[in-house]
């Protein structure tokens, strides 16, 4: 049952159209960010980079970036650890409550984030915890650690349990097996889980909205400005946030092949 050539071409065009549709609003924000007029209106008459300059120079912005980065960094590290262990329990080990655990891990992903954020806000308040950027870390983890777990689990499914058994038969201890076998084999999964965790935390808006208290992350601050009225800094800052995410994805995609090339070169020399 081959798909006809015409149908294939139509499908590819449809795919390109979808990509254009997904990126159109980001392109619009890009245009808005270089418009000189204080009140945005198209067509743009004169262009400027001044909003980027003022955004980069602003002390508020560097504070926002610092808060967002700190949260994302902590969430990344914790998600990698939780995801590694959780992924093993999810996919690799046959234990009694495995299916129940799998379902528990899925539930927070199938839960609207804004409602989760509000529920956590009430929870923190009734515990007497004042929400700050630290509580936002917990909120992000509830949603991101399960995703990290799923990513590691996909890797763990393709992992042959016979390898571990062979190592054990040859006299390796549980700790040695973990260090020499399990961790290196699952490392690609753990690294992509970390990358996802960082990017999802950096861009997260609905959870941060309710759980950062008086602190603010970049997406939360941008939302406040969008709702309360237009400021030409909004598109410029939005574009900077988008550009940094895309740059990170590109770096993450090129680094492995660069490393491989480097290793191949070294192997050639010896």
């Amino acid at each position, binding site marked *: 049952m081959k798909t006809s050539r015409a149908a294939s071409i139509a499908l590819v065009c449809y795919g390109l159209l*979808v990509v254009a549709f997904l*990126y159109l609003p980001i392109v619009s924000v890009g245009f808005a960010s270089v418009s000189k007029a204080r009140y945005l209106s198209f067509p743009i008459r004169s262009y400027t980079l001044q909003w980027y300059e003022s955004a980069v120079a602003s002390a508020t912005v560097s504070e926002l970036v610092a808060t967002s980065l700190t949260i994302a960094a902590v969430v990344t590290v914790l998600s990698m650890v939780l995801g590694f262990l959780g992924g093993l329990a999810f996919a690799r080990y046959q234990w009694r409550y495995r299916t129940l655990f799998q*379902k528990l891990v899925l539930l927070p992903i199938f839960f609207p984030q804004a409602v989760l954020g509000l529920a956590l806000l009430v929870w923190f308040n009734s515990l007497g915890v004042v929400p700050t950027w630290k509580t936002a870390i917990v909120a992000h983890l509830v949603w991101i650690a399960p995703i990290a777990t799923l990513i590691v689990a996909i890797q763990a499914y393709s992992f042959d349990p016979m390898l571990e058994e062979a190592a054990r038969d040859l006299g390796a201890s549980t700790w040695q097996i973990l260090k020499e076998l399990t961790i290196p084999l699952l490392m690609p999964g753990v690294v992509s889980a970390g990358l996802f965790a960082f990017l999802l935390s950096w861009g997260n808006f609905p959870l941060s909205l309710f759980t950062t208290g008086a602190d603010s992350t970049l997406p939360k601050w941008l939302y406040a400005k969008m709702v309360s009225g237009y400021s030409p800094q909004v598109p410029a800052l939005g574009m900077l946030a988008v550009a940094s995410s895309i740059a990170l994805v590109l770096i993450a995609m090129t680094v492995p092949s660069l490393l491989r090339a480097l290793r191949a070169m070294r192997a050639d020399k010896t």
Partner: protein
Amino acid sequence: MKRLDGKLGALCALPLGLLLAASFLAPLVVIAGFSIMPQRVFDLAHIPDFSAYAVFFRQGYYKSLLWSLGMAFMATTILFILCWPLAYGMAKVFGRFTLFLTIAVAVTLFVSENIRLFGWVVTLMKGGLFDGYLKELTGLRLEGALYNVPITVFGLVYVYFPFMLFPLTQGIAMVPDDARQAAADLGASRWRILWEIDLPLAAPGIMVGSLLCFVLAAGALAESKLLGGQSVIVIASEVETAFSYGQNWPLGSALAMSLILVIGALAITTIARIDLDAIMGRKR
């Protein structure tokens, strides 16, 4: 061997299990507790009177819930129709183009949804990208594109696109080519193959994608605020108002519970029916 597996499994599950118990299940229990408390109390040491649920029905809050569920249903249906051909292409037709599409779509997930929705506001507003250039080129105006119900549904479709596309692609990839080939050889029409082979065999992916989109869209907030201009008040927004301006935790909790009960029932029945090991690629 079996016993060691059992011990290691429980041990590895412990950290994440504790995190989810303390910061996912516990908050839900607290919300459920507050929802049956008398109005405007700030702790759980009162005699339950379920008055917040009475307010939910008496003051018409159920309409917000129905709007949210209705718009989520619309968005999910549209998403299914939009994503099916593309998911089919990604699973069965495209070669390297699938990788390009996967990355291109996944990257949008890393851009805050409020920035992307703001982008649509800039695109569609009066004097925005479309209206501005349309006026410049033809003199026509694009009026009333924003701040109504259809644009809110459009926003939901836009934001949750990847959540339908990826599970559907995975689902269609699970349909064996042999089954489709055999059906075609036996003279089944295209529609019959779609109806009797593709849809049933891709069902796990369809269920996961539809459930994800419906549940997330039903609890969404930013689409109706930024694009819809509050033309209808969604349930998540009512919950927020009750907690913040209203300072009425029991009402906010009851409103949240009304949504949580619907989506929780859907999520739990669906998740219970799918075999995760099969979807996520156990090789046994």
